[in-house]
């Protein structure tokens, strides 16, 4: 039992609300936003920019799906189609998914969760946003100039001589890499050095563990991608031909180095989502997580094993049976760590006082879709099956289940979960639930048929297809519009709430996590006075103090639960 510290009324608490400046209204000029070093404002800057990029990537996706309404050319020519799917991949991976949860919600809540005033290097943090924007703009310039037609993987030898804007796009991605590294360094150092004194590692919220694992990957994998993209850039721009078989170069070497980054990058996308799930599940079941340590350490386990699995992308690129087997088995290890998490989250819900709010509905979608994606991931890690499914829609469906079903639903759960904290306003719960349901249904309708398509032999990235695949493509395209509708409703609901949402108190969900123990929105340096972390971040057995306490009654004692 932790003892409750007495509430010391602070003179600031006595002030009327309007007199207490929040991080949003402490300064309101454009200049104050563009030169801010406040981690919360930088999180908001990232949020606005990546949501715009996400919308752009989504438009490309809808265009791809529309093109597949008929087996023959529908809307565009083959070259435009190639550009569309490449841009969809590049924008979604590097301009949205990689920065999504760490740069937005990590920036916003990580320092608050540690009881710190800011991240360790606030100026670098701001620089990371500018670097990200510079890289993104360069990528988008390549879109406007002539597009890119290599696919987001930039495989040589084709990428070495493609006439499209490959060097520009690669340069943009290279630049974005620096912003990723800066964010990673900042989070690692912040977690090590900025924790409120007395806050031990095993008392940190689970999101912090997930972000810590993510940061390790960001710091160690991104530079390898930088090196290899630089070489392809020079290959294409200056004709170095380093990966060109005509001069003895080996394109498979590119694949090794590319996937050394790009497979761990999947965990850069999914690990933070897992952290969000841990936070949301505990808050909305009003219970401590079932085995905190297992969830925390499995985040590090995924980060570590994730570095040893890249070869499973290359089973058909000429790899010895031994290597393929080793990479296959190591890849399956990731499923063990993931399953540990999934079982623990599910068991956390059991016996909890579950309230089905929008973030939790997204988390349910996450659990269902992520398990689906994870199981098919184990299947494609088996070499014999992968030979059949390689480069088909089966793989496309698999990774969309992880990246959209996992990472995107995690992002949306986080957005709805922390929206009241970020803005001090509440959105319409009913419409939030509706949009979450539509996102789930639309996603499933879009991508489940793609498993069937791939298994039947539909290759990925093909412009036209045999007529017998049309029904499944039609279902998939219809699903994409349901998904789009869900996302548009979510956007309208949140934008409406931004202006007209009713104001909320510091802790509308009744969470015990540390970020809810300050005002919504928080003041500039996060806490008006020294934060009180005496009650643990998942301790729902006793009340919090004063105005940060829960509006709802405490859950029944364990013996009352059947």
């Amino acid at each position, binding site marked *: 039992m932790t003892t409750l510290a007495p509430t010391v009324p602070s003179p600031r608490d006595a002030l009327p609300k309007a007199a207490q400046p929040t991080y949003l209204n402490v300064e309101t000029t454009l200049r104050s936003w563009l030169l801010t070093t406040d981690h919360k404002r930088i999180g908001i800057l990232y949020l606005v920019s990546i949501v715009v990029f996400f919308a752009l990537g989504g438009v490309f996706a809808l265009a791809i799906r529309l093109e597949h309404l008929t087996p023959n050319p529908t809307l565009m020519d083959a070259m435009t189609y190639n550009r569309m799917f490449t841009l969809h991949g590049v924008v979604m991976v590097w301009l949205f998914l990689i920065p999504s949860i760490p740069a937005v919600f990590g920036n916003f809540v990580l320092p608050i969760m540690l009881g710190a*005033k800011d991240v360790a290097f606030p100026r670098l943090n701001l620089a990371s946003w500018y670097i990200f924007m510079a890289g993104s703009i360069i990528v988008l310039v390549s879109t406007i100039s002539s597009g890119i037609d290599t696919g987001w993987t930039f495989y040589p030898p084709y990428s070495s001589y493609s006439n499209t804007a490959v060097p520009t796009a690669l340069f943009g991605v290279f630049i974005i890499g620096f912003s990723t590294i800066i964010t990673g*360094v900042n989070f690692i150092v912040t977690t090590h050095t900025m924790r409120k004194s007395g806050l031990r590692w095993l008392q940190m919220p689970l999101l912090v563990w997930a972000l810590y694992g993510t940061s390790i990957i960001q710091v160690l994998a991104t530079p390898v991608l930088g*090196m290899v993209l630089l070489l392809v850039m020079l290959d294409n721009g200056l004709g170095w031909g380093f990966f060109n078989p005509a001069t003895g170069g080996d394109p498979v070497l590119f694949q090794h180095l590319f996937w050394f980054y790009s497979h761990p990058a999947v965990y850069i996308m999914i690990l933070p989502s897992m952290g969000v799930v841990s936070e949301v599940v505990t808050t909305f079941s009003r219970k401590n997580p079932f085995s905190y340590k297992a969830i925390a350490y499995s985040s590090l386990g995924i980060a570590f094993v994730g570095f040893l699995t890249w070869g499973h992308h290359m089973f058909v690129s000429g790899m010895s049976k031994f290597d393929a087997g080793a990479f296959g088995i190591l890849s399956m290890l990731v499923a063990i760590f993931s399953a540990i998490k999934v079982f623990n989250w599910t068991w956390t819900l059991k016996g909890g006082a579950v309230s089905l709010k929008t973030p939790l509905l997204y988390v349910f979608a996450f659990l269902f879709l992520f398990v689906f994606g994870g199981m098919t991931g184990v299947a494609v890690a088996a070499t014999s099956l992968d030979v059949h499914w390689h480069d088909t829609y089966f793989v496309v469906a698999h990774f969309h289940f992880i990246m959209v079903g996992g990472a995107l639903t995690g992002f949306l759960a986080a957005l709805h979960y922390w929206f009241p904290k970020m803005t001090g306003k509440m959105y319409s719960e009913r419409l939030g639930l509706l949009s979450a349901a539509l996102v789930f249904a639309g996603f499933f309708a879009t991508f489940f048929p793609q498993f069937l398509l791939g298994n039947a032999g539909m290759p990925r990235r093909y412009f036209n297809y045999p007529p017998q695949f049309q029904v499944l493509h039609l279902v998939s395209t219809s699903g994409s519009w349901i998904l789009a509708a869900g996302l548009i409703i979510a956007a309208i609901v949140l934008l409406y709430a931004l202006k007209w949402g009713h104001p909320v108190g510091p802790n509308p969900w009744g969470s015990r996590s540390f970020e809810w123990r300050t005002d919504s929105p928080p003041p500039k340096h996060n806490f008006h006075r020294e934060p009180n972390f005496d009650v643990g971040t998942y301790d729902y057995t006793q009340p919090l103090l004063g105005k940060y306490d829960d509006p709802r009654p405490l859950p029944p004692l364990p013996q009352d639960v059947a």
Partner: protein
Amino acid sequence: MTTATHHEPAAIGHEAPHLEHFEDLEKQAHASRLGMWIFLATEVLLFGGAFALFASYQVVFPEAFRYSIHHNAKLLGSLNTGVLLVSSIFVAAAVHALRGGRSKLAAWLVTATMALGFAFLGIKSIEYSRHFAEGIFPGGVGSFFQEHRGPGFPEFWTLYYGMTGLHAIHVTIGIGVLAFLLAGIVRGKLTHVNSHRLDIGAIYWHLVDVIWIFLWPLFYLA
């Protein structure tokens, strides 16, 4: 603010300025050092990717690599190794001097480090211009590759220019960082109180040195 100085007996009478979001200067120094070490991990991985490429191509084209290493400017490369090693001694001595409060000596030692950095770049450019004269350009361009047609030669020399070039960029950045710190010492803003900032620059300079210690045997010896 005077309470912030209790860890540094020598600092009595000085204000130890730390950034607003840190509790004290000691925590700030710890964070900065840790940040630099983690950044160095990314640098190691950046060059690690290139080392992996070198290793792979060397296995595939042992003859071309052996011939090219033999052909390389062994004397100039080894001289540069010496230059960087001595520069590292200077920068380490500068850190030591600044911690002891001898700012003037520290300033001279940092200047010497930078001078050796420039010397390194000078020797490197002599080396490059020799190779250009021999008809060796990156990407397998030049008369050298007319005489040596086998595969493996373009890979070796592309890696040579790529990796030593990237290293030279790092030396240049290192010189810039040291110049910035030198300005701080000269203007009295960087003293024994906040000497951790020079530590960070020195750690970076040592990394640049260490990477060269690995590039040297790869491209000039063996």
